[in-house]
């Protein structure tokens, strides 16, 4: 491949990207989320209850409550637009959310889907799991996944935040899935970054949620179509009141 082909490809890519960017003219909110303060120690998860789970791990397993990257950036923060999204029917993604249970741990720990979007739960462990969602608004379900059932697909038909997913056989297993009416949400990875794209101009309330440390909000205005704004959050443990 010579340089010219490379250049051509690059130009084509650039054109396509610019075209898309200018055609949608959508705003973007990005940000980074950090943790401040002493990192508490978590007790190791004892998987003695199920030998199959035990054999899946060589290292000690800890709860996913606080997963930090370099510079204490936080993973598993659910960031979403809580106010200001124009009401209309947003198309439901056909791609399902995949919720894995490998090694008797739910992954991802925190995630979001849209109303009626499929959630595909996998069981690669070869042991009995039961996917027990305990929503308050939607219908509760508690589906067993014996060895022979490798996947189960479910969905929720009403918006609801942070639905806990339990497994009653392995009480340490937990995941939180939020059911959204719009596609403007993201979950941070260990680098703490999030990106919400495709927003029309307007003023929005951005919320960042952590299961233990609560919700923080920020107001962000996208003045012109296509503008990009940032919103950073810092979480810390509340001071204990004596």
């Amino acid at each position, binding site marked *: 491949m010579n340089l010219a082909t490379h250049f051509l490809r690059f130009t084509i890519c650039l054109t396509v990207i610019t075209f898309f960017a200018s055609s949608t003219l959508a705003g973007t909110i990005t940000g980074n989320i950090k943790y401040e303060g002493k990192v508490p120690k978590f007790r190791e998860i004892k998987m003695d209850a199920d030998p199959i789970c035990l054999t899946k791990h060589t290292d000690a397993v800890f709860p996913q409550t606080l997963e930090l990257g370099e510079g204490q950036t936080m993973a598993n923060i659910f960031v979403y637009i809580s106010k200001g999204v124009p009401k209309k029917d947003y198309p439901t993604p056909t791609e399902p959310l995949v919720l894995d249970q490998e090694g008797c741990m739910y992954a991802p720990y925190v995630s979001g889907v849209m109303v009626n979007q499929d959630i595909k739960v996998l069981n690669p462990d070869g042991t009995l799991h039961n996917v027990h969602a305990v929503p308050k608004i939607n219908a509760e379900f*508690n589906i*067993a996944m014996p060895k022979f059932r490798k996947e189960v697909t479910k969905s929720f038909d009403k918006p609801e935040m942070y639905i806990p997913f339990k497994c009653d*056989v392995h009480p340490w297993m937990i995941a939180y899935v939020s059911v959204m009416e719009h596609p403007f949400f993201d979950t941070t990875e260990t680098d703490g970054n999030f990106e919400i794209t495709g927003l029309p101009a307007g003023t929005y309330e951005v919320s960042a949620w952590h299961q233990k440390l609560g919700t923080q909000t920020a107001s962000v205005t996208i003045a012109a179509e296509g503008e990009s704004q940032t919103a950073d959050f810092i979480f810390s443990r509340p001071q204990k009141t004596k």
Partner: protein
Amino acid sequence: MSKEPESHYSIDKLHFIFALAALALLVIVGGVFMKDYDRKWKDYQKKFRTYEIEVARTTYDAELNELNDDAAYQELLTEIEKAEKDYEANCLGNDALEQEIEDLETQKILKEQDLKYTNAERDAAKFRYENAVGHHVGDPKATKGEYKSFADRAKTLKREVEDLKVALAAKTEIKAKCGKQLTELERKKRRITSERDIVERKLDAIDPNQMDFTNRVAQMVRDLPILDLSTPTTEVKQIVLKDITDDRIIRQVPKVDRCITCHLGIDNPAYKDFPQPYKTHPNLDQYVSNDSAHPMEQYGCTVCHGGRGRATSFQTAVHTPQNEEQKQDWKKKYNWKADHHWEEPMYPLQYTEAGCFKCHSGEYPIKGAETLNLGLQIIERAGCYACHELERYKDWPKPGPDLTHIASKLSKEFAYKWIEDPHFFRKDTWMPAYYNLANNSDLMSMARGQQEIHAMVNYLFAESQDFNLSKMPRKANAENGAELVASLGCYACHQSKPLDGDHDVTNDDLRRQHGPTLTGLGTKTSKEWVYDWLKDPNRYHPETRMPNMRLSDQEAADIAEHLTQDTHKTFVMKSIPGFDEDIINDITMEFLGKQMPKTSAEKKLATMDLDQKLKYSGEKLIGRYGCYSCHNIKGFDNAKPIGIALDEEGSKALHKLDFGYVHVDHTKHGWFDQKLKAPRSFDNHKVKAPGEKLLMPNFRLSAHEREAVVTSILGFVTDVTVKNKIKPRTPENLQLEKGQEIIAQMNCRSCHKIEGEGATVQDTIVDWLKAYQGKTDSEAEKFLTSFSPPDLHGAGKKIDIEWLFNFLHSPDVEVRPWLEARMPTYKFNVGHLNTLVQYFNTLDGEDKFPVNPKPDVSLTDHEYKQAEKLFSLEYLGCNLCHIVGNETPTGTQDTWAPDLTLAKTRLKPEWIIEWIKDPQALVPGTNMPTFFDPSDYENSGAPDILDGDEDEQIRVLRNYLMTLTPDKRKTKVKVEIPASDTNEAGASEATP
């Protein structure tokens, strides 16, 4: 000039007077008309009309906005617009098309006619030609040509007619299509806008601004005096009830309630924020609305609320203010005056639930009536029914402890101080105060009171029977005792310290106060006594509701050690006054004087020593105060309760209540409240001998508690007018009520959720998980269900009748061995047990005929093997959570589930099938996973077992569970019918 007739009076003057009188009469008649015409309710209705318009307008605007925002609707509008244009362009006023159709039609008719004639001519020519050939008449050649030319012409004409038909059809279709789409669209539109249109029509009917002139005038004329006889816009609105009556003493007449004449928005949720009298009823789910349990059209208003239903003014409806402030307010606003002449005034707002009792008197609890239930529960706890007869509690045990062996439990000093002021020892005790009350707190009475207490204590101890306390283990561990009290579930019925006085007591609180609060036991009694009590409460107190916790000797000793560590120091330091023989003599003389003449009484007194006097007067005093009503006391076995019966107290006439010199509202609720607050205060300023004084003790109820009890008492009425509305006395309903009564009496709801209510013990289980299991708040919350006594929802469907009977009789089977909370052994008799078993079965509709034979639970060898496979870890892994006899699951205890070896005797086989199929449907939120997902049932079973047939898998699994026994998982298998053989035979036949 004619002469005036002679008269003694001036005619002119008389005319003048007559004219004046006539005028005055006219004015008066007019005034009467005006007065009669001017009714306050008309003003309310007129005002409501403006609100109605306001509401309709807001709804209309909202509907309009919604329609504007509705994308589908907007799209429809543009479509309609397009269709209209289309219509206009192609159909409407398009005379050309009409003309064209008409022309075509004419052409067609003409051509058809032509065709007919031509056909006739052709046939004639044909005949002529045939005739020429056959009969040689005429020239065959010429006739042939003639025939042919006609035939050709007919053919052409036929084609032309057909063409015309096609053309006409095309044009008519265009015409028919015209407007068809439009009509369809218009219909769609009407469907979407129907709500708006309804409001619009309503506005047209009521809003003067939206009416045409004639209508507006008509509206005005309709309301003019006299003319308003026909169809006025303002009118008295009423509900007439045939099956609820008004008691007119001589006869029962249909009930008529006119409350809705002014309470115009009562059934319309749109008026919930409007001022009275327009405000919506606050509980439309239960009352007033048509789909509620008590629709307005069937129940009216006054049957629950009281008051005069036929009245149409504020005063005559007998509204009753809820407090002084409202009373003053009403006086100002409505010129309100108390009306003593109507026997059933409206209940003040806070006592409204009193109206529920007349129909729901058999239910425990009365669903939705929180205040009334609280009142009834206080009556149960305080034991009001012991002194005051109440039909509802006629078989209830005495509320206080048995005193026949009092000397083994208490000291005389304790008993004295306790009677003197029970609340000083224990703030929240249900034992009421008899001394230092309004009519016995002067110096003389106090001195006498002290000696009275001495006398009663002396009698009780003199009559106390011997009671041997069982021997207690030497060593006891208080710390372990504390943990046991926290874990076993003692706090389901007892508190460790009195409730916080700041918050209003709730029904849940009272369930946790079923037994006495466990404070100061070290001061009250000995640990030996507590030990003995814990080991077998019925031995000391045969009627007690305290169950047997089946404690081991050591457990009981540890708990006794722990409980008796708490002492009451200031109580110990209280001094006891000595005997005063003069006063004791007076008391003794008072009673002796009632039995014999004074001289003999004095003689008799002289023969008695101090002990004898104390015992004699003690017995008499116990009789006077009615201590035996609540406590078993020797010598009072058949004594009658001392209070008046309360069953009709709520309908007692006001004048029968003695208000004495106390300044309280002269209302029934005012009197009841005062009676509970200061029961003896109606003696104030009265001159009474000791024996004539009021006796009711003081329970020290808070204002909130009194409000609840007053609600109940107001509800204790006899009311024949509602006899058609009472829940039918069918065997099922009676069965349920009897079960509910035992459940209330034994406080089952403290541990179990029954009919969706109860399980108050859970708070204390959270405390235990945190204090003794090292769980955090959120963990404790998560583990709570696993460590709580079971919810009894659907128990009747689930549990085998015989098993349930035996379990309730002697619950020492460990269904959930990981639970620390212990199901105690109650002293139920056979009647109780049957009532409870029937209750649970009736509740779930399980007692209906026909009885079905028990399902066949046998298994073939093949099926057995398949079931065993399904049960195993490879498939469903049942024993991952379920205990199976001696085998406990590998997981932590919070994941454990009931012992499956009990299934055989404990569970109903039909239920197991339902349960495995869809556990969430039976117990929402259960930890039992759904193995056979009902949303995809056909594909939910393991494909390689029994051909993937889900129904079969569930059946064999159930049957397999029925083979499990504690020692061995496997019992006998039915002699095998080789299923595989038949399959093979079938297969070989099919293959040639």
